[in-house]
């Protein structure tokens, strides 16, 4: 039996095409992937991301523990600030990527990937038992949260009509608590699309009301409900990593572009640090790059990548799609570091044939140029 979010009935009413996504019954699209993608790039769109997991770490020792369990430096966070981070195992393999919200001096909310909720909670519980010092409380509150993401340039204008906090005061990667549609909410200026936007954490009971109010308030801004399909193409155009694709336990932060959230110099030991330090000192051997098709073939996860000689295998594709913005096939590939330079020719084996690609600068779309 697939799990359903509190918005399941709304998806059915909106004609969402439901699919099995890691055990969750979620809409892959409503009106059409391209339309939904363009709505987010040009206006705004809302996504049901209630399947994501939420853990609370609270009480004396909370900061110390979060800093021990995650790679980024949580001690730099002010209350209501957020950071992108990762959980690693003792070999330096990535257990998950997550967002850490600091909600109090000794209170944190960790938002993890849906497919990893059980694994992460087990990992963190084990970490807590090894953690020396005062032990905070760790609770899995995933069932108590629904999450709606509103993304796109009009997000702020739409959400402001329903929210009692001043959204202009919430900077990127900060959050605030207040009321949305009169319901207690945590509103964070975060997202997974490369556009301005918010992620709104509410109770499961309040979610349908807020979802429908957003669609009504956003109607004249061109808002659309968006499915997992558009979520994937939007993140891919930004080269944002997705766990299970770019990130796995067989990859480490330095080869997957997560060096910037791996703070080896922070004033705290953390799980995986000795292994990750060694990897950094030796120099990573692989690199996660963006690849752009010079022909028409679409790269997909698992396809093999060859170097310019077309004979030597240098890696594999981790994600790929047809970019709705560029109208070209794009992908992310984990390849040997010597091939990582932009402009390098690569060949991807698509079914029987090799198709020509080049390593390109990422994000695939230039958000700065547009503004």
């Amino acid at each position, binding site marked *: 039996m697939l799990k359903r979010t509190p918005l399941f009935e709304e998806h059915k009413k909106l004609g969402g095409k439901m699919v099995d996504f890691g055990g969750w019954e979620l809409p*892959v699209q409503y009106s059409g*992937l391209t339309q939904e993608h363009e709505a987010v790039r040009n206006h705004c769109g809302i996504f049901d991301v209630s399947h994501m997991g939420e853990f609370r770490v609270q009480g004396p020792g909370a900061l110390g523990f979060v800093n021990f369990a995650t790679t980024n430096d949580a001690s730099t966070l002010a209350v209501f600030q957020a950071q992108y981070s990762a959980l690693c195992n003792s070999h330096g393999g990535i257990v998950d990527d997550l967002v850490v919200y600091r909600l109090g001096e000794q209170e944190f909310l960790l938002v993890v990937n849906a497919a990893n909720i059980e694994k992460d909670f087990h990992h963190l519980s084990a970490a807590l038992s090894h953690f020396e010092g005062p032990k905070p409380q760790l609770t899995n509150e995933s069932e108590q949260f629904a999450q709606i993401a509103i993304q796109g340039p009009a997000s702020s204008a739409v959400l402001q009509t329903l929210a009692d906090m001043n959204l202009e005061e919430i900077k990127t990667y900060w959050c605030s608590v207040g009321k949305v549609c009169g319901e207690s909410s945590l509103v964070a200026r975060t997202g997974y699309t490369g556009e301005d936007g918010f992620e709104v954490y509410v109770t499961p009971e309040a979610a349908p009301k807020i979802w429908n109010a957003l669609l009504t308030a956003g109607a004249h801004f061109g808002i659309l409900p968006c499915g997992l399909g558009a979520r994937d193409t939007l993140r891919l155009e930004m080269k944002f990593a997705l766990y299970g694709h770019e990130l796995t336990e067989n990859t480490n932060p330095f080869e997957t572009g997560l060096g910037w959230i791996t703070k080896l110099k922070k004033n705290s030991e953390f799980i995986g640090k000795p292994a990750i330090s060694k990897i950094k000192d030796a120099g990573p051997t692989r690199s996660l790059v963006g690849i752009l098709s010079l022909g*028409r*073939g*679409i790269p*997909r996860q698992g396809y093999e990548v060859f170097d310019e000689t077309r004979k030597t295998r240098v890696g594999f594709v981790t994600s790929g799609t*047809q970019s*709705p913005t560029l109208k070209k*096939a794009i992908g992310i590939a984990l390849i040997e570091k010597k091939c990582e330079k932009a402009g390098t020719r690569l060949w991807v084996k698509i079914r029987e044939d090799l198709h020509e690609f080049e390593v390109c600068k990422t994000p695939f779309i230039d958000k700065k140029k547009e503004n």
Partner: protein
Amino acid sequence: MNYPDHLRYTKDHEWAELVSESKVRVGITEHAQSSLGDIVYLELPKMGRELKANETFGVVESIKAVSDLLSPVSGKVIEVNSDLTSNPGRINGNPHLEWMLVIEAANAKEQFGTLMDSGAYSKFVKSL
């Protein structure tokens, strides 16, 4: 959805149209295009290729999915719609008109007759 009566259908959601006693035109159905979503890539066989019924003759990809195309009949590929490979998105607009290839076989009419008619195919799609 209305599936035209003059076409015959396969369980893999290709349609066939008998254009003469020995020629069958092939495409994919409304159900196929709507399940795939926005179609962005189409790969078709070379002219002259000999196909067996149910053999893979090409690939259609939407943004999210990759799907093999299976031949409804056995025969030789005598026409390939290369305009469609340049503009595969047209399939979404008019799946029952946007043909992919023409297959020639002496017994084309006979093979065509063994495929599902529109009533049977509609029933089959509803059962999915």
